[in-house]
């Protein structure tokens, strides 16, 4: 039950407000309804009781004067429903109307009509036997007994002398069934008018909030996100304006980061370039080559750091590229340096990528394979909704429980940070970041036949 309520309870703002307003309106209308019914009952009492009491007083006076109840002249109605007998027509099973009895006592006292007791009650038509002379009424009741039996009657009985009662029987106006219908219709109109107004104002708040939520969720980089238009009530406008301001500040920070990285890149590459030029002047050829290789290594690390830091805002556009030609390029570069790297034959495969970044990712993976596995074999396989670039080596592989940790920046399998095996441990982290940035992924797995397989999966 609680669960059902929880499920029905609306989660969003407009739903909750609509529901709460609905419930509040229902309660208010209920109270109103009760008050209205009470007011109507009072009105009815005055309308019905006053003539009934007047007729009763008239009947008592006639009875006291000995005038027959059947008058030759005067309004016919006055003599209807008056019965003088030895008992009260009010019986124990009828609902008493003490309020009317009290009014009658006061009225009779004011009119100085002496009575001993007054009783009043309400009765269904079936319980009331009218005096026989009311033919028209009898006829009507025969035709439509249903009507007679269901109509409520009011009986006011006054004991004028011990054992002599004057009974007055009169109809109560039947409850108008349309009254309830009107009330219901009125409630519904109120409901719709108020709900429409509430929902409209809630939507006015909810729409800019929804747009803002979308903008925050979709925030990848400052320039790809758009300013959210300021609309809705002033507090929502202020929130949207605050978000737009924050977005501008973030863009500013990113710009600053880019400028800083550019400056770092420039400031580090310039001395490296200077070293590289000076190295060329060295006499010892072997020493010179080693120095050039070290400088190249430093430069690559610098490139990796800068690429990783800038990955969020790539400057290179995505283009459709012949993947086979790109891989051939990478493999050729490694072969030119005398590494055992091969590329399996494959059909022409095109992918939509940022070629410089993917080249860097593949280069890092092949570099790892060569460094830790001695050789690399690059191949391409069709994969679900894309292609997979496989880089296999014949090295010792990686213990299964260490594989995840390899993707952490600066992680390397051996704890010593020796430069003997080279690398800063950034290569894999960067390759993975590049894969994710392309909507792909990178996995490492030990091959059953030995060695490690890196799989760079790219969406097609």
């Amino acid at each position, binding site marked *: 039950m609680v669960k059902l309520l929880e499920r029905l309870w609306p989660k969003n703002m407009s739903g909750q407000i609509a529901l709460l307003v609905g419930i509040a309106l229902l309660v208010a209308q209920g109270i109103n309804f009760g008050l209205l019914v009470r007011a109507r009952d009072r009105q009815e009492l005055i309308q019905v009781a006053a003539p009934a009491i007047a007729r009763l007083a008239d009947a008592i006076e006639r009875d006291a004067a000995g005038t027959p109840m059947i008058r030759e002249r005067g309004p016919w109605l006055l003599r209807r429903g008056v019965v003088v007998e030895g008992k009260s027509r009010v019986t124990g099973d009828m609902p008493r109307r003490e309020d009317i009895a009290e009014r009658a006592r006061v009225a009779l006292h004011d009119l100085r009509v002496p009575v001993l007791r007054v009783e009043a009650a309400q009765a269904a038509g079936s319980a009331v036997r009218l005096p026989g002379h009311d033919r028209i009424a009898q006829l009507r009741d025969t035709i439509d007994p249903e009507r007679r039996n269901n109509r409520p009657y009011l009986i006011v009985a006054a004991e004028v002398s011990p054992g002599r009662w004057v009974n007055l029987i009169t109809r109560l106006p039947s409850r108008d069934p349309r009254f309830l219908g009107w009330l219901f219709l009125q409630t519904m109109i109120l409901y719709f008018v108020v709900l429409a107004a509430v929902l409209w104002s809630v939507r006015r708040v909810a729409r800019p909030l929804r747009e803002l939520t979308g903008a925050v969720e979709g925030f990848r980089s400052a320039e790809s996100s758009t300013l959210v238009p300021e609309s809705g009530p002033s507090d929502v406008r202020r929130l949207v304006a605050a978000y737009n301001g924050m977005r501008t500040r973030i863009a500013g920070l990113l710009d600053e980061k880019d400028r800083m990285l*550019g400056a770092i*890149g*420039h400031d580090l*590459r*310039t*001395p*490296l*370039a*200077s*070293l*590289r*030029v*000076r190295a*060329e*002047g060295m006499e010892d050829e072997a020493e010179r080559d080693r120095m*050039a290789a070290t*400088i*190249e290594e430093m*430069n690559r690390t610098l*490139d990796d750091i800068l690429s990783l830091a800038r990955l969020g805002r790539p*400057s*290179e556009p995505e*283009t*459709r*590229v*012949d993947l*086979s*030609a*790109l891989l*051939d*390029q990478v493999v*050729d*570069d490694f072969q030119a340096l005398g590494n055992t790297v091969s590329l399996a034959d494959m059909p022409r495969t*095109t992918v939509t990528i940022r*070629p*410089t970044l993917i*080249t860097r990712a593949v280069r890092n993976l092949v570099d790892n394979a060569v460094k830790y596995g001695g050789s690399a074999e690059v191949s391409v396989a069709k994969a679900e909704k894309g292609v997979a670039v496989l880089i296999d080596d014949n090295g010792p592989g990686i213990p299964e429980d260490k594989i995840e940790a390899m993707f952490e920046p600066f992680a390397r399998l051996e704890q010593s940070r020796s430069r003997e095996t080279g690398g800063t441990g950034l290569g894999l982290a960067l390759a993975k970041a590049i894969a994710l940035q392309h909507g792909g992924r990178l996995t490492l797995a030990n091959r059953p036949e030995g060695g490690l397989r890196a799989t760079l999966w790219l969406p097609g």
Partner: protein
Amino acid sequence: MSDRPHLLLVDDERSIREPLAAYLQKNGFRVTAVGDAATARLRLAGYAIDLVVLDIMMPGEDGLSLCRHIRESGEIPVILLTARSEETDRIVGLEMGADDYVLKPFSPRELIARIKVILRRAGNGGARLRAPESESYAFAGWVLKAGERTLVDSDGVSVPLSTGEYNLLLALVSRPNQVLSRDQLLDITQGREANPFDRAIDNQISRLRRKVEPDHRNPNLIKTVWGGGYTLAADVTRM
């Protein structure tokens, strides 16, 4: 003396400028080295400069602006030195009218090779590829865009080329249906002479074939000419 090409080296970093100038001089060039764009303009007006080696990032007027000035006022080839590896910088540089670019830190030997290639092209009866950004070559369903150094097929798929492959293909498409010997190709693309067992050109040709031929085992675009040479068997349209 007049044999030796005269280079103008523009770099604000003394730590690069001085050793590089010395190295270039040692390798047979006349070198005038200056530290800013304003002095470079003076030297350009005062000397017959054959080629400018230009750093992009300089205080004051930067290399790109000076490059544009050089391109507007004459035919002197320009090689850009850039500390940034971003693709956009490279393309902007080439669109500014530079003939080539080298990423810092560069191998001085590589720089000399590039200089020689460009001087060779310039010396070949004005066959220097001036204003490269305006040049595109369409052949056999391919477009070689000199400005961006990319090869694109009819579906818009770009095929990455190494500098050597690009130079080789450019040499072939700018001389369609001419037979070019290995020596000529080596001379045009790498600015050096072949040694007897040099397979560099043949290797690059076979790599190129893998990229552009529908069936690289039966090439009919880049054809081998009996007696030692290659030719591009296709009509080339300059765009």
